């Protein structure tokens, strides 16, 4: 505490600090009110999941080794690896996809997938919610009745 001979009284200093805190609180209240009524964000997480799943499907399309013809949408299981996907799809986006098929698993953007998957499973709503999208592509086998599928699980952050 400053003595009576001090250049500024303790009360004046405290009043000044309290006033400044009030200004800051008022600013944040105004910010919150304006933010509530004006939309400044565009949520594309659902579309993003859809786009990335299709990008993966076409990135791993089967190509005839003899003719060079690409069969869009027909997946080559050998191209569906985490390493191949990381090379073919390089992005800083917060979208991640796990592909499970025939007891194998490939993950695109593994770091984000491990981080976002528990959030997506929790289904917590709100601005920081994570969206999960499931997509199946059935595998055709000759001379077998066993039903299998490529299981795409995309998770995207809002």
């Amino acid at each position: 505490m400053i003595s009576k001979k001090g250049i500024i009284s303790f009360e004046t200093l405290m009043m000044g600090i309290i006033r400044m805190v009030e200004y800051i609180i008022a600013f944040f209240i105004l910010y919150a009110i304006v933010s509530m009524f004006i939309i400044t964000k565009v949520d594309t997480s659902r579309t993003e999941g859809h786009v990335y799943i299709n990008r993966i499907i076409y990135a791993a399309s089967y190509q005839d080794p003899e003719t060079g013809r690409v069969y869009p949408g027909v997946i080559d299981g050998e191209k569906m690896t985490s390493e191949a996907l990381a090379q073919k799809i390089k992005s800083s986006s917060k979208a991640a996809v796990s592909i499970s098929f025939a007891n194998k698993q490939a993950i695109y953007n593994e770091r984000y997938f491990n981080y976002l998957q528990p959030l997506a499973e929790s289904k917590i709503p709100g601005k920081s919610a994570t969206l999960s999208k499931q997509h199946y592509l059935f595998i055709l086998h000759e001379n077998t009745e066993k039903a299998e599928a490529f299981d795409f699980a995309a998770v995207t952050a809002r």
Partner: protein
Amino acid sequence: MGKKGVVKQYFVMAELLFVGIIVLGMILFSKGAADGKDIEKNYLARDMGLLLTAIYAAPGDVRYTYYLQNNEFDVQISKGQVIISENGLRPITYYYAEDETMQNPDFKIQKPKQIIFVKKGKQVTIES
């Protein structure tokens, strides 16, 4: 005026300066929110980013013309990022997925009226 008076005067001036900064912040924030430019830039960046990601997935060649009527923004597309800004200021960034096995675009233009996305063979280019 005594020493005590001078210090009080400085204290009031500092307080006024602080209030001025807060008011300026409020005005800038309200202006930015009211003119809707941030949402427009955000929309453009996301639209172009997702479009480019989809174009990379195309099994054949693609030529896609993106019209930008009355556009006031600068566009920069490179290294997996779409950056929309106003004369280089207040940029909004969104991502697209590149392909390391292909030749990727490096594009920058001020206030374009149209942008043409081209995928030909192992090359993705952007023209205006």
